[in-house]
């Protein structure tokens, strides 16, 4: 019994170790390949906006900005929708509807990115453009909506990311809500809670996992390449405008990697990959940390 236990620990430990070394190896390889650019630009790479392969000037700020801005916008749009869907499926919807709805959300999660991109070009972008045109001039004066109504741009990218993230987040949030013990709902009901209040109590109980679900969606939005590339406009600029065509880290790598002729150009693109890698690690680390501190507060000796 005990020796099996140790064997189990060793083997799972070995897997964990392999995983950790893969992460380290990726980081190491990315740093090595981008050394030329790191040495030449240092921290300016993160802070400056000139992206000029001809002049050999590379600053990644517009791409970092574009990735974070589009992902955060997508998160803001997707989170309430995803949680709403999760709550509806797990708490409110009639039993006969449940299986088809679950199937549908899982189907949406399985659609390839490029298909979303095509849908974005043919449906979403024209729709966004007419929305932009319809916007009253008083609003168009705001920095948030400045620029010509092109359709392609930040808003389309954020929307398509949101559509792609919702099935993920809602599936995880639904699973999390399922784990809430019936006793929690009963406790609320027994005190005179309405169904709405009992659901709130369940969401509160599951809040850690729901944050995890939201973060998972964020991580996915950060790394999403194809669909965003197709609708964001691919113009490296740091702009607060939702209508402005912008660029993301993943998109610039995908678009320019094959044409990167000289070594510095290539190194700069790899460094963008490194930056994306670091940001993803930090976001995941932060969300894990958040979840752990929440879980730590939750677990007491009686919680076991």
């Amino acid at each position, binding site marked *: 019994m005990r020796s099996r236990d140790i064997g189990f620990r060793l083997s799972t430990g070995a897997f964990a170790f392999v995983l950790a070394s893969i992460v380290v190896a990726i980081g190491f390889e990315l740093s090595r390949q981008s050394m030329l650019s790191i040495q030449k630009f240092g921290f300016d790479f993160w802070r400056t906006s000139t992206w000029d392969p001809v002049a050999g000037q590379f600053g990644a700020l517009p791409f970092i900005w574009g990735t974070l801005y589009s992902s955060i916008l997508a998160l803001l749009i997707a989170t309430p929708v995803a949680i709403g869907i999760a709550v509806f499926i797990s708490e409110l919807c009639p039993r006969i509807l449940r299986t088809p709805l679950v199937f549908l959300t899982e189907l949406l999660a399985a659609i390839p990115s490029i298909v979303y991109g095509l849908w974005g070009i043919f449906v979403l972008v024209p729709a966004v453009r007419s929305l932009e045109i319809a916007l009253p001039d008083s609003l168009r004066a705001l920095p948030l909506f400045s620029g010509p109504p092109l359709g392609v741009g930040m808003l389309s990218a954020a929307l398509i990311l949101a559509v792609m993230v919702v099935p993920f987040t809602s599936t995880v949030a639904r699973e999390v809500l399922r784990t809430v013990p019936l006793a929690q709902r*009963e406790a609320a009901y*027994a005190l005179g*809670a309405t169904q709405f209040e009992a659901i709130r*109590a369940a969401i509160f109980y599951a809040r850690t996992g729901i944050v995890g679900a939201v973060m998972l969606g964020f991580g996915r939005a950060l790394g999403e390449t194809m669909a965003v590339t197709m609708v964001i406009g691919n113009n490296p600029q740091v702009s607060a405008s939702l209508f402005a065509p912008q660029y993301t880290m993943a998109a610039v790598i995908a678009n320019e990697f094959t044409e990167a002729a000289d070594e510095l150009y290539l190194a700069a693109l790899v460094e963008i990959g490194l930056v994306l890698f670091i940001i993803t690690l930090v976001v995941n680390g932060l969300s894990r940390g958040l979840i752990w501190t929440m879980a730590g507060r*939750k677990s007491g000796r*009686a919680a076991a």
Partner: protein
Amino acid sequence: MTGQIANPSIRLKAPTPTARPTEGAANRERDVKIDVEHLSFFYGAKRALEDISVKIHPNVVTAFIGPSGCGKSTFLRTLNRMNDIIPGARVEGTARIDGNDIYAPGVDVVGLRRRVGMVFQKSNPFPKSIFENVAYGLRINGMAGSKAELAGRVEESLRQAALWDEVKDRLQESALAMSGGQQQRLCIARALAVRPDILLMDEPASALDPIATQRIEELVYDLKKAYTIVIVTHNMQQAARVSDHTAFFWLGRLIEYDRTDKIFTAPAEKLTEDYVTGRFG
């Protein structure tokens, strides 16, 4: 078997005033708090309770005993309509509280559950602070009032549940960091906070050690002055210690309902005798 069911109401309606040591018990027994008539309960097609009729009196402790699966919890949960949240559950017959049919159409179930508090077998505090656990019911029922009123009500409830002295310095700490016995008393305090007049307890001490159990039993004894208490227990000694009346259930039926001392010393039914003397599988 139906023929064997004692009719408890007849026996309890004519109590011999000197038969009980409990002061004033005779007077209270003329009142009926909960009046159940011919109640049957179904989980889908499965019948879990069959033709239960029972009158439960205010300000006494009524114990439900019986072997596992006989329907004690199910019956208890019909009294605050907790079974409503189970899909496919169905009730037949009537159950009245203070004369009002709780299954009548249009009954305010949320209000009913506030008046009929419930404590569960496994303590189920919310993952919030001790204070917020007790305040929860007050908040959702719009009973929170001012900050000072809320704090006063929380303190009062914790005192009633004999928990105040242990937690008064750590009200903001997580309820989940308390011991099992403290958590169960917190759940009692939480139930008391919304001022119910009936308290349903489903094996409230079954997961606790003897000392914590004793505290809960003392608490039940104190609380019956102000509340009508129904307690499910698997523990014969506990039923004998805390309750005034005992109902014995068997296979979804109420076999016998009488004064606790009678149930334990001179039961009318052979089944009851076999069960309370432990001659039962």
